[in-house]
């Protein structure tokens, strides 16, 4: 296999989406066919390979179209689940940080309690004049 062959296959691999096992099986078949072709015409570059075998984008689209709808749905569901999980973790973390920032002091009747050493000092805020 030439460098052009490896580069082409790498580009195709980057574009493919779906089940790992199916991608692996297709790439195995494709790389055998590309290698066979390069044995006959070793001077083919990446562009010539894309012309003969199809551009990586074309192949990725076709690969998606030939997948079972069940697999496609599953792949999308997994993406959805991961996305929801990440959003949930970020939201929970933000809520935790907000609580820590805004409710860092204990209070009694609206007055802050500060602990200095073993003593407990209560600061009384001046009453608002109406």
């Amino acid at each position, binding site marked *: 296999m030439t460098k052009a062959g490896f580069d082409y296959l790498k580009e195709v691999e980057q574009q493919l989406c779906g089940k790992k096992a199916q991608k692996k099986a*297709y790439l195995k078949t494709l790389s055998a066919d590309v290698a066979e072709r390069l044995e*006959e015409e070793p001077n083919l570059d990446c562009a010539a390979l894309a012309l003969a075998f*199809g551009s990586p984008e*074309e192949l990725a689209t076709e690969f998606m179209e030939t997948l079972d709808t069940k697999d496609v749905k599953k792949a999308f569901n997994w993406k959805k689940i991961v996305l929801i999980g990440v959003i949930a973790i970020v939201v929970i973390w933000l809520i935790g940080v907000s609580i820590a920032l805004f409710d860092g002091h204990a209070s009694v009747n609206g007055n802050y309690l500060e602990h200095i050493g073993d003593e407990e000092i209560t600061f009384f805020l001046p009453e608002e004049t109406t």
Partner: protein
Amino acid sequence: MAQAQDNFKRGTAEMLVLYLLEQEDMYAYQIVNELNRRSGGCYRLLEGSLSMILMRMEEAGLITGRTELVGKRRTRRYYTIMPLGREKLSSLMHDYQEMIFGIQSIIDFQKEETE
């Protein structure tokens, strides 16, 4: 037009590949060339698409592949049609003929109406 041709190719590629393999064992590049040659350059199947079709047909047990040494170093993967593939080909050919007949009937019907 190109999109319509792509869809038509996708729908018929499996049948045509099985049809060629019924006549003789072939390797991928040979199949692409033979389709191109027999159609007078009209039916050009991408080799990457053919790899996909061959992989699916092999998984389904319609064809089987074997690697042969050509010359000293070169290898080729030849594909052979299996009994299940022959059954599938017969079914696809029947569906194709029926569809072609139906489409032609629609066109002829419209011609008769306008005459």
